[in-house]
């Protein structure tokens, strides 16, 4: 990397304009916290000729709450979101997933938007975002649009963003009463690691009955998955053993993993069931509290 154009626009319009122009001519990368991009550049995996720093764009750094529905800017760092206590009370699973990324130093930079756009199948915040039911607002040369998180990715390292589109913010639904979310990942160590399997669960309980459930898995397929069969097995149940087992089997069935240096197919399948049960237990406990 010797000659790189670095731009740091202050408005979303400028950023979109620059991105759509420059990515037609060459290799352009968006820089938010840079915790993935700088590593990729150093290793030679990414060799952009233009870098667009989006950290100075106001909308991307904003946190707002309208009637209990949160909007989180794409470039808001994990450490910053952690200070927003009420967000953590509403979406503890999303926050714990985001906070698992990297070290405390990395948390000063790493963002939900970056984790989403990096499009690693093992990205920690993605299953939690899917389970929460959050959507993402993107802006491109042809205007704005909103996408569910579960349809954002096209494959490992690939997104469904169109040319020139930039992720602006995440739109969270209003948190339901007696609902709770949780994210758990399996790593061989206790921190500073990458998920071998990740599982997020978001449940809503009324009169001890599950009235809503969203289950998502990470690192078990080319993209993070929303496991709808697991939701179906849970909704209407009292979380009785059979229902939980059925949902766990749905998780296992949804897995389409690979053998790699981080884990085997059979290991990932077995672990997906275990993590689902543990995440569910945690989510139920949280739902009962609030």
């Amino acid at each position, binding site marked *: *990397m*010797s000659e790189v154009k670095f731009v740091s626009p202050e408005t979303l319009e400028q950023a979109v304009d620059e991105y759509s122009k420059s990515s037609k001519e060459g290799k352009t990368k968006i820089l938010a916290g840079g915790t993935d991009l700088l590593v990729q550049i150093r290793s030679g995996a990414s060799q952009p000729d233009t870098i667009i720093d989006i950290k100075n764009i106001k909308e991307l750094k904003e946190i707002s709450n309208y009637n209990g529905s949160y909007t989180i800017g794409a470039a808001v760092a994990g450490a910053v979101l952690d200070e927003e206590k009420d967000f953590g009370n509403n979406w503890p699973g999303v926050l714990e997933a985001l906070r698992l990324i990297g070290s405390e130093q990395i948390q000063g930079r790493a963002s939900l938007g970056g984790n989403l756009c990096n499009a690693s199948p093992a990205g920690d915040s993605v299953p939690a975002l899917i389970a929460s039911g959050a959507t993402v607002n993107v802006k491109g040369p042809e205007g704005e649009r909103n996408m569910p998180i579960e349809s954002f990715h096209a494959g490992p390292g690939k997104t469904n963003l169109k040319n020139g589109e930039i992720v602006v913010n995440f739109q969270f639904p209003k948190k339901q009463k007696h609902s709770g979310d949780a994210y758990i990942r399996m790593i*061989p*160590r*206790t*921190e500073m*690691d*990458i998920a071998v399997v990740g599982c997020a669960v978001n449940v809503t309980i009324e009169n001890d009955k599950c009235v809503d459930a969203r289950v998502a898995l990470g690192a078990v397929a080319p993209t993070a998955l929303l496991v709808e069969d697991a939701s179906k097995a849970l909704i209407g149940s009292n979380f009785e053993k059979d229902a939980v087992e059925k949902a766990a089997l749905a998780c296992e069935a949804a897995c389409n993993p690979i053998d790699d240096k981080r884990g085997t197919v059979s290991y990932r399948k077995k*672990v997906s069931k275990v993590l689902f049960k543990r995440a569910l237990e945690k989510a139920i406990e949280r739902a009962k509290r609030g």
Partner: protein
Amino acid sequence: MNEMDNKWIGKNTIRPDGADKVTGRAEYAADTIMPGMIWGKVLRSPHPHATIKSINTKKAEELDGVFSVATSADCIDFPVDTPVILGIQDIRWMARNVLAKEKVLFHGHPIAAVAARTEEIAEKACELIEVEYDVHPWAIDIDDAIKPDAPILHDFIKFDGRPSNIAGTLEHKKGNVEEGFKDADIIIEKEFETAAVHQGYLETHACLVSVSPDDKTTIWSSSQGQFMVRAMTSFITGIPQSSIRAIPAEIGGGFGGKTIVYLEPVATILSKKSGRPVKMVMTREEVMRASGPTSASKSRVKIGATNNGKITAAQGTFYLQAGAFPGAPIRGAAGCCLAPYDIPNAHTFGYDVVSNRSKVAAYRAPGAPIGAYAVECVLDEVAEALKMCPLEFRLKNAAKEGTKAVHGPTYPVMGYVETLEACLSHPHYKAPLKKLQGRGYASGFWFNAGGESSAQVNITEDGNVVVTTGHPDIGGSRASIANITAELLGIDINRVSVIIGDTATIGFSNLTGGSRVLFASALVVTESTNQVIDILKDRASKIWNIDKEAIEWENGEARPAGDNAGKFKPLSLVELAEKATPTGGPIGAGHQVNTVGAEGGFATHICDVEVDVELGIARIIRYTAAQDVGKAIHPAYVEGQLQGGVVQGIGWALNEEYIYNKEGKLDNPGFLDYRIPVCSDLPMIDTILVEVPNPKHPQGVRGVGEVPIVPPLSAIANAIYNAIGTRFYSLPMSPPKVLEKISD
């Protein structure tokens, strides 16, 4: 020396290098810069095994900003069939490891290097070098390398009369094992395997080299031996050692991995050809791909014992993978594995196996953890079959003073039994365990070493002390030497400064390794300091005009003794330093010698694990390491050595491994997927410092740095068995492997 009277020995004094390290001022190899400096980068092999047909560097040389290019043609030629031994290395191999000659033998093997104005230009120029290869099939694992039709790395290496990848063997024999097994009531035989693991030093290899037009060469680098750097660079470049000055930087970890060179000879060639100082810094990926891990292994161990718990015979066969060039640490595996025990009949056999991986380098007690892993796991099974406590079983068979070891020597005073007794009486031994928790035990041994060491002790004009030694300080040698010098001179520790000399300022000192440095340098520093005290007494005798023999040195001052006691006011070190010139000149003394009398170290560890049987994760929840440390000169440093060794052993046992892909390339060349334990993975590692002083050393020093990595592999395996009833015979015991086995 009466221990109770010690003022500095045995005290946790402030570390001389501490302030610089915590404030970021300490200079590591990559911190040195020079005017006119340029950058060197290495072109590495894309193939795991190929013959180099040609190298064309023309386009690289013509690139704007490039100053020089180096290939093996610039190195001294060492014929493959003639050994050139330097310490435990062979320069034939070292030269070919630094820059490949006839063949590339692993993915990442250096082929050529470029020095240019910037690192980017040097990298680009490397890509312009044209290499023609004749690509061969490769062998990564031991089984692939020793099978009958294996691709042969070095045609001239023969085993059983045929070209082979078995480059050497070593055996130890005692008694008659066949007869010994006949006397056994119970015999257990098992096979084991371990993965290659890297030392994991945080500081990557780096150097700056400046060669003047008359070949005067200065090398700044991080290594475990500036004299090793000087000698190897001299061999490979042909520049005489007298023209090379190697200056040791602070070292950001070595653990054995910095006992050989990778960059220094290359930077020397590049600097000589360009006339500019050349700096080279490896990336982490280069370190993982091309610097030495330690061996992967396969082994088979058989142990027999009587019903009353006496071992009658033991047999061990160890295959250690050496990487691209011969030199696997088979001596550590076959020599240390039975050392803690008094066994009448024993036979150990080691095979040195080359394969298409990076050349192994020393790693903390090289080979010993591999041998101990197999033996200590089988011992656990024998003890279980005999229904004996594993520690009591070891106690019953423990080597003692006078025991003839399987690897040869007859032991003098040594403290193995004391480590077992310390564990048996420690609260950890009896602490309750919960469900899915288990406790394991294992012992270990390391030879320790002596060897060449030089020291100079000088009294400054203001009556303070500067001690210079020749070994890079990787485990607290400066602090320990300061303690000893202050003790001997009877002065405050703050008046003693200890520095590491470069190759031009101190006599030859062998490298920092083998747990030898404090043993050796304390000997030469003690001798030098005693000479200084003798000079000081001589100066006092001149001032007082009495016999030197009538003067004693006590508490930092010369005192008249015997008939003269009380006749003169004592002369302090400061007063004698002030009068140095009229009484005979500068005060100082040096000593250099090949030190002998190093004695081995023994350890016994207790490990508790908790196993998550749904995920296959074993977590270490409590750990106690007892070790005969001889005499702890600086206990905090000794404790740190024990803890560090245990942690590296935990990584080796649970998650660390070199993973190769189908193309014969390392698939996890970084700290994300090469999993060293992080702090949150670990409990406090408790230590028990057993002090049985080495009778052959003035302060009783035994090496302490290597023994602690020997027992953990088996202590953990035994603890997992105790927790869940499943034995593991293959490392690492990583979650997928553990879950697969317990699901079966």
